[in-house]
């Protein structure tokens, strides 16, 4: 057939406002009215028209050369997938399963503070460090997790020392993060963290009523009061930008996102990640489900309601990004890559992040470790005490996970307009749908991402200058003044 132009690969989606969204493999998109869309795909578009040139400039059609366009698309696709160039970057180490809390949503499943058999031993810790430093990735982040890792502080010191020693030859960009509930922290520990350049990641669910609702201390005291006291102490010693909190949204807190955000702003935290509850660990038990769970739709509605409030905070002069939004906006609006272990294609489990359990067992993700804790060893890749780096990182399990998590080939994702913006989570699929690939039409994860991406695309289409300024200040991590070019 002799067509007047060539159509390049594109995916499309019909929007409620009757417009048709088309997206190419590098994430460039355009909204068309249905008539133009029909004309485009039936080769009836006037190739002298402005619209044709717009499509040509986005490498969706061509009426002249095709080879150079394929080259450009290839370069852009590689840029979008740049997170794959480095192998495993994030190495999470579970130093102990013991914890002084017993939060009812804990997906990490804690043990009482006196059960030392759940601690990582010196020998295992040394093996873990050796394995971590074998990664080909030029950047390595070691994240101390638990339980409460400060209950096994000596092993933190051992790992930091050993890793830095090995790094004298490896010369990687090495960083450390301590995930702690802060309640056990004291001046000597803080001074040590400062000296070694270790960042602190902590947990704050919101104001006292919300925080203490699910974050329960084994000794019966208020977790919030202790947290606040120790946060103050931490800020005295550490750079406040080196302390960042995470939160988990529960049934009790989903209608109080505003108060939670105010709490974060009041403490001077630099942003928030609105995380919904994970379907793992304790959170999966029937009793806890009843007090914790909410539907995906409830989460989506709460997100849509709170985002304008967060934008308003930014417009009033406080730079305060929402992290999930920032990741998605970066994917939609920029040519750049954003690896995000929980939402990328192929998945980050194993190849971007990996977790070493207290006993040396290696899992592709914390969620996989939790499944094991609940009795399903499906994703155990090996153990540092008996397996080599290659046995673990070339394991059949890891290959299977990667093969099952390329949205380019997953049924349903393969033709989805949001493909390049989205990702897959095979372990979650396995946990919720008993299959690595899962079933898209009944998949909560897919539902949530689709709805939120749609919502963001609609906001972008509205093109409110203030909203867009805020979005770009999140994407480029600059102040509103800079984004607006108001150089004083």
């Amino acid at each position, binding site marked *: 057939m002799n067509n007047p132009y060539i159509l390049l690969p594109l995916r499309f989606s019909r929007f409620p406002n009757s417009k048709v969204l088309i997206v190419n493999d590098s994430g460039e998109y355009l909204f068309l009215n249905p008539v133009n869309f029909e004309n485009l795909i039936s080769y009836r578009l006037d190739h002298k028209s402005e619209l044709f*040139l717009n499509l040509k400039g*986005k490498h969706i059609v061509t*009426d002249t050369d095709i080879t150079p366009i394929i080259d450009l698309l290839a*370069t852009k696709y590689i840029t979008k997938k740049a997170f794959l160039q480095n192998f495993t970057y994030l190495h999470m180490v579970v130093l102990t399963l013991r914890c002084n809390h017993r939060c009812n949503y804990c997906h990490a499943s804690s043990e009482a503070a006196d059960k030392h058999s759940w601690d990582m031993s010196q020998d295992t810790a040394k093996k873990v460090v050796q394995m971590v430093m074998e990664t080909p990735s030029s950047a390595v982040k070691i994240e101390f997790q638990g339980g409460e890792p400060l209950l096994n502080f000596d092993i933190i010191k051992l790992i930091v020392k050993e890793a830095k020693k090995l790094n004298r030859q490896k010369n990687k960009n090495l960083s450390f993060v301590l995930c702690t509930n802060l309640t056990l922290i004291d001046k000597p520990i803080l001074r040590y963290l400062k000296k070694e350049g270790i960042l602190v990641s902590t947990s704050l669910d919101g104001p006292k009523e919300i925080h203490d609702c699910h974050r329960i201390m084994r000794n019966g005291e208020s977790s919030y009061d202790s947290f606040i006291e120790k946060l103050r102490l931490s800020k005295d010693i550490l750079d406040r930008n080196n302390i960042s909190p995470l939160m988990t949204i529960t049934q009790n807190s989903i209608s109080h996102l505003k108060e939670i955000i105010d709490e974060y702003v009041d403490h001077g935290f630099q942003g928030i990640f609105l995380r919904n509850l994970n379907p793992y660990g304790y959170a999966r038990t029937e009793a806890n489900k009843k007090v914790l769970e909410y539907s995906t739709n409830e989460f989506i509605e709460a997100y849509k309601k709170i985002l304008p409030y967060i934008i308003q905070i930014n417009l009033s002069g406080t730079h305060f990004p929402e992290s999930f939004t920032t990741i998605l906006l970066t994917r939609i609006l*920029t040519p750049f890559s954003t690896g995000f272990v929980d939402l990328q294609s192929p998945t980050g489990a194993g190849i971007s992040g990996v977790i070493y359990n207290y006993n040396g067992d290696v899992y592709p993700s914390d969620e996989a470790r939790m499944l094991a804790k609940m009795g399903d060893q499906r994703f155990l890749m090996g153990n540092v005490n008996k397996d080599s780096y290659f046995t673990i990182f070339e394991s059949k399990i890891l290959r299977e996970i990667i093969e099952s998590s390329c949205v380019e080939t997953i049924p349903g994702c393969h033709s989805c307009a949001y493909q390049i913006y989205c990702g897959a989570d095979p372990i979650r699929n396995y946990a919720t749908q008993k299959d690595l690939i899962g079933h898209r039409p009944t998949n909560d994860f897919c539902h949530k991402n689709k709805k939120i991406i749609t919502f963001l695309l609609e906001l972008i289409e509205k093109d409110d200058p203030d909203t867009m300024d805020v979005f770009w200040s999140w994407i*480029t991590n600059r102040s509103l003044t800079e*984004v607006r*070019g108001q150089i004083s």
Partner: protein
Amino acid sequence: MKEFIGVPHNINQPIMGIITTKLNNWFVKNSSIFVVKDQNQLSKKFSLGLNRRHLMASVVSDHVQFSPLGGIPCLSDVNGEVCEALNAGDVVLIEPSGNATILYLKNSPHNSLFLTNRCNCLCIMCPQPPTADPENLLGMNLKLISLLGKVKPPHLGITGGEPTLLGDDLIKIIAECGEKIPNTSLTLLTNARKLQNIEFAKALVQAGRCKLVIEVPLFSDNDTEHDSITGAKGSFYETLRGLYSLALLEQPVGLRMVLHALTIERLPQYTEFIYRNLPFVINVAFMGMETTGLAEKNLDLLWADPYEYWHKLNDAVKFLVRRNVPVSIYNHQLCTLPRDLWPFAKRSISTWKETYLPLCSECNEKNNCCGIFVTGVKHSDFLNAL
């Protein structure tokens, strides 16, 4: 470049030298050209002591009564104002015909080497349409670089025509700059078509030793329009490939867009294209058109008044600023721009081409403004004193 004339004496071949204004200031042996601005400068010392060992030539004002001394080349009867304007450190070329050219202005930030008059594009708005090169242009430029070694310019442009048409000689020139003026930052202006050859690009980048920035004109988000502006089919994709070669080599690259009736309409698509395809550029310059050469010839087709397109320019600048892509505005008078855009506007017009209208003398912003092209036949109808 600024040119002047005089009456030649004893000039048998082109002479290139560095201007000196004081006789005790023969800072460059055998390369100095002494300017005689008034009679008092003609001391005994001058008439007695000088010969070719000290002075290469002299340039003498028409205010001065002068009879040329035996042997020393001289250009006499040169306009007095021209002589006044010559400064120590300027580099001048005097030809046997009596024509002289100022090749380097010490007090200007806009000095360039002109490597060739030839080009592999014929842009619809070219202010300086391609012509054949004079003989020994390469030799002249190498000589100029060696003289500049004594002047030590902070910055030097390298332009044409299309410099990459020189092939290996361009590499030689850049390498020579590295040798003779190692601390000078260089800006090469090229359409980058030839740089799709990665080996050539690599040689260029290596010769540039990190002192080189490459500025590339790009006029559209699609080949149809770009190629019709450059008059060269295939040039759009060749330029993009050249840009990708340079990005691969981590060579700093800037883009240049000339604003006129054919480019204004698609500025939004153009800026989006840059961000999506060329996010590595270190600067995007939006340039006002120099209305001479082919731009003058095609003025009816091309003319767009800056005062009337400032909204579109404003949107384009804001689009890139939001995305953290550095932007500059060249050749736009401040009175044609909203105040928001002033921080981006540069004094971009070369010193020897920069002029102001009589009404500009009333303007409070004159010193911050690029003025207008002395070469241009048309400028905005809305210029006014601020």
